[in-house]
């Protein structure tokens, strides 16, 4: 609800003028009870559900909103629209929400004016996101004419369980469940005819496949689904497998563009397209047509860029360089996410961390200067005391009390074992109740507290602070979730809800009585880093860390830095790589905070986040090193094909070999008869089922160069799908314009390469002519796969994971694309997945940013919910392998003169998941706060009356 009005100043010291629009609702008082929305008489289209249903003027945008606070929309609210706030007599009388709000959070006489705020910052990051393309202008798809033609964004909402049809898919025209659905790709992307979006939006193929796969979960019976596409672009990590899975599940992929949509006989649409297998025009009926709309920059974002003076490219994305992704033309202002380029979630998350790293370099000297720490009284030792439980039952206004008889629940609580004090509060989370809870803890000498209210996921931290304020260990606290998981979901069954709330409270009290104070854990952080691999990713990471002020060790296994970049000439944007590379190497080698070891490898490792200790072999000499975090940038290399006469004829090259050939013998092109590129050499094959992401762009780049050098040279590209995502699509268009000939092949009919005398003969079946075409080129370039470095050693030493293709596994495919599952370890570059230089640099920057979250503090606090070994453990070691974090090890110990075994758990590695607890056949290992006994008493309490 805020907008940037303008900006002044410069890097390190910007003044940002922000217009804060009124929420009308006081955020400190709002408890998100929804009563204002319930009472609000004004219905308006719900923009979150793409206008497919209605919301009120008093609203939250969606259920997961953070913070979960309501707002009154001034533009539609009856009171404001009728001028009530302007003191117009007899106008604007509604104010219904104000009257019904139980906490007095709504005040129309206050908080209704725009506020202008001045904010002083050192750096600015622009992340305004994208706007889905509006297909109304494409009359042939009849989006504005037929209700059953929807955009993919609308379809997404139709599928959603909190969308307009509650997750049970129905079509808009008549509310019937669709049985046959079509997707049309590239609506508003790869199109310079009806719109100016010449770029590929990068994400639509995958979201269409996802929607098609997920549709089955939201419908009954079989659904016939067809995706009409130009090229399927599943170039991300694990994406190709997902595409294959969709094909196996029977989703039809039709390589054709629907040219017109007609009204269907009974709702739905009839689409007409050209079947390139039969050469016929086909009319086919569908119940729904989903337009896979592209991503574009919104007008608001363009205006924002204008106000800030940030230059945009011809497609209105922030102008950036491959070597400094996320920077703009203005120092100190950065861009990330789809404002830079259309991109998917993992790439956006990576770019966001990258921008954060760039933005914080200039600020690193001021790190921590504005933070304050809270202090708490000395903690009281209650371990020897009998449990004395205090219960606070929250009414939450009428949110709980309106359904559950809280008075009876409070009475019931008094009779529960160990309960010595019970009180009912109107709002247990209010500030004065915190004071009250603290006082009651002291007054009644409580040593355990149970709050029956909302969810611990949002409110436990608040009450834990109160526990600490009262001098109690914060883990002596338990919640009973009688709002989110009771009164709100059983509002029509008050009696059963009361019974359930009693059970919930009894379970919480039973668990509370078993709770024990937990130790606050932390690890001391060695504020230095190890970077493994001295290619571009590794060097950018090392330089980034060093520029943030951290001592960094860079290991390179060969005798020179640079890796694959030595073999590359220019980026897809045409920037020369060699000067950048040489400059980067010199910066790295001359940086006082970077220690480079060449011919180096890791031999042994122990320790964990904050405190790793390794042995490295540097040209035969063993050294011990210590560091707090590690970034793995071990890279990958070009696959050497075993087909298409590779290695048997010196006219057959890989991409990198061909680049080298061109840089050395370019004049030979003058006399050449032709060049052929074969795509997917080693990629998208059974033994390497992934797409290598960069090869299509590389081929386009080379093909364009060839055509520019010798326009008469026949150039052919034999391909399966062209995957020039984002603005790389321009290269593909340019190649076609320059006369490069594209011939599509399928895996069951791959091009055949043979020799006829001295001639190299390539035969491929032309997909338009349906006939074999014979080409006799001088150059046959194989767009060969990228394969990951060998990681066996690393996996053994650090217990990190690989995916089935041998690339290192990130902690979460979407949300943590730079972290590894081992705490304190990060990854960047080709070891993660094939990617272009700009993407490698962004990921390396992101690794710097992620690593800084650990390295910036000398002590890292740890959660206390960790595993611990009980006296029952006798070292059978079954749990050791089940720990996903490698936190468990086996040790010998002496007991009464004889040797026995037991496990030890590493607190820094343990995440408290408890798989060990569930594995152990003898209660030998537990998780603090979730021991088998603690779960069991809840279970017994739940079943007490059965």
């Amino acid at each position, binding site marked *: 609800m805020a907008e940037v009005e303008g900006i002044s100043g410069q890097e390190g010291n910007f003044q940002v003028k922000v217009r804060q629009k009124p929420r009308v609702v006081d955020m400190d008082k709002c408890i*998100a009870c*929804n009563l204002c929305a319930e009472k609000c008489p004004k219905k308006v289209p719900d923009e979150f559900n793409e206008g497919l249903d209605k919301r009120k003027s008093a609203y939250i945008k969606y*259920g*997961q909103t953070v913070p*979960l606070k309501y707002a009154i929309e001034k533009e539609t609210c009856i009171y404001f629209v009728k001028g009530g706030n302007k003191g117009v007599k007899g106008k604007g009388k509604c104010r219904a929400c104000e009257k019904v709000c139980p906490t007095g959070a709504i005040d129309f006489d206050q908080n209704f004016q725009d506020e202008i705020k001045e904010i002083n910052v050192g750096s600015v990051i622009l992340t305004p996101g994208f706007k889905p393309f509006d297909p109304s202008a494409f009359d042939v798809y009849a989006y504005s004419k037929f209700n059953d033609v929807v955009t993919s964004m609308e379809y997404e909402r139709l599928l959603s369980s*909190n969308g307009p049809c*509650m997750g049970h898919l129905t079509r808009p025209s008549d509310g019937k469940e669709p049985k046959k659905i079509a997707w049309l790709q590239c609506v508003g992307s790869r199109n310079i005819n009806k719109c100016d979006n010449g770029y590929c939006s990068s994400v639509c193929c995958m979201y269409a496949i996802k929607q098609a796969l997920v549709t089955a979960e939201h419908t009954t019976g079989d659904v016939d689904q067809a995706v009409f596409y130009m090229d399927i672009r599943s170039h991300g990590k694990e994406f190709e497998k997902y595409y294959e899975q969709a094909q196996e599940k029977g989703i039809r992929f039709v390589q054709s563009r629907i040219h017109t949509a007609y009204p269907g006989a009974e709702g739905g649409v009839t689409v007409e397209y050209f079947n390139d297998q039969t050469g016929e025009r086909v009319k086919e009926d569908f119940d729904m047509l989903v337009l896979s709309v592209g991503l574009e920059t919104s007008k608001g974002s363009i205006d924002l860029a204008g106000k800030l003076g940030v230059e945009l490219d011809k497609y209105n994305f922030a102008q950036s360089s491959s070597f400094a992704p996320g920077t703009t033309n203005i120092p100190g202002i950065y861009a990330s996410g789809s404002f830079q380029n259309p991109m998917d979630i993992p790439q956006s998350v990576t770019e966001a961390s990258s921008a954060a790293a760039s933005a914080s370099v200039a600020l690193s000297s001021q790190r921590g200067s504005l933070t304050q720490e809270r202090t708490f009284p000395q903690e009281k030792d209650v371990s020897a005391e009998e449990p004395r439980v205090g219960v606070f039952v929250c009414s939450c206004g009428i949110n709980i009390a309106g359904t559950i008889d809280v008075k009876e629940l409070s009475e019931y609580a008094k009779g529960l074992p160990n309960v010595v004090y019970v009180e009912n509060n109107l709002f247990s989370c209010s500030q004065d109740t915190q004071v009250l809870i603290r006082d009651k803890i002291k007054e009644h000498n409580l040593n355990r507290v149970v709050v029956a209210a909302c*969810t*611990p*996921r*949002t409110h436990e931290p608040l009450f834990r602070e109160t526990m600490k304020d009262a001098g109690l260990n914060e883990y002596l606290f338990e919640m009973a*979730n009688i*709002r*989110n*998981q*009771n009164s*709100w*979901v*059983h*509002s*029509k*069954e008050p009696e*059963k*809800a009361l*019974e*359930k709330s009693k*059970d*919930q409270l009894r*379970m919480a009290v039973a668990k509370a009585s078993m709770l024990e104070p937990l130790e606050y854990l932390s690890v001391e952080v060695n504020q230095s880093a190890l970077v493994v691999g001295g290619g571009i990713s590794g060097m950018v990471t090392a330089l980034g860390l060093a520029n943030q002020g951290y001592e960094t060790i860079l290991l390179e296994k060969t005798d020179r830095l640079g890796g694959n970049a030595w073999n590359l000439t220019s980026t897809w944007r045409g920037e020369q790589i060699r000067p950048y590379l040489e400059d980067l190497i010199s910066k790295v080698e001359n940086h006082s905070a970077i220690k480079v070891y060449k011919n180096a490898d890791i031999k042994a490792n122990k320790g964990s986040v904050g405190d790793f200790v390794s042995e490295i072999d540097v040209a035969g000499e063993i050294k011990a090193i210590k560091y707090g975090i590690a970034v793995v940038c071990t890279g990958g290399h070009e696959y050497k094909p075993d087909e298409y006469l590779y290695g048997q004829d010196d006219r057959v090259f890989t991409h990198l070999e061909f680049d080298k050939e061109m840089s050395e013998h370019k004049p030979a092109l003058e006399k050449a008869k032709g060049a052929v590129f074969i795509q997917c050499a080693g990629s998208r094959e059974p033994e390497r089922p992934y797409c290598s992401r960069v090869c299509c762009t590389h081929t386009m780049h080379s093909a364009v160069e060839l055509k520019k050098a010798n326009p008469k040279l026949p150039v052919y590209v034999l391909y399966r799908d062209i995957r020039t995502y984002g603005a790389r699509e321009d290269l593909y268009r340019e190649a076609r314009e320059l006369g490069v000939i594209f011939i599509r092949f399928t895996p069951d009919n791959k091009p055949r390469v043979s020799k006829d005398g001295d001639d190299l003969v390539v035969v491929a079946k032309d997909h338009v002519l349906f006939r074999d075409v014979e080409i006799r080129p001088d150059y046959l370039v194989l767009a060969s796969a990228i394969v990951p470095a060998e990681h066996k050693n690393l996996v053994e030493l650090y217990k990190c994971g690989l995916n089935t293709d041998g690339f290192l596994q990130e902690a979460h495919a979407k949300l943590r694309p730079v972290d590894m599952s081992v705490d304190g370890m990060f990854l960047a570059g080709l070891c993660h997945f094939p990617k272009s230089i700009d993407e490698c640099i962004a990921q390396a920057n992101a690794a710097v940013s992620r690593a800084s979250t650990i390295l910036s503090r000398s002590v890292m606090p740890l959660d206390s*919910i960790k595993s611990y070994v009980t006296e029952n453990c006798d070292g059978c070691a079954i749990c050791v392998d089940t720990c996903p974090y490698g936190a468990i090890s086996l040790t010998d110990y002496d007991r009464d003169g004889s040797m026995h075994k037991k496990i030890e758990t590493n607190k820094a590695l343990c995440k*408290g*998941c*408890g*798989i060990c*607890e*569930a594995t*152990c056949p003898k209660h030998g290992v537990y*998780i603090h706060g*979730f021991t*088998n006994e603690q*779960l*069991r008493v*809840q*279970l*017994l309490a*739940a*079943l007490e*009356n*059965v």
Partner: protein
Amino acid sequence: MADNNEPVIVGFLCNWCAYAGADLAGVSRMQYPTNMRAIRVMCSGMVHPNLVVEALERGADGVLVLG
């Protein structure tokens, strides 16, 4: 749940997904039967099979492990 023939279901809900989902069902005011009693766990992987067996032994009609 003292009386009647209402089935009793014990649910072990992962804090990070299923429990959050149950909370969101509340925020969205979805209505569902009252029969489940939820036990919050930090990962559905921490639920020992013995707890499931014991729940059934002690009269639960069903056990949900959600994660």
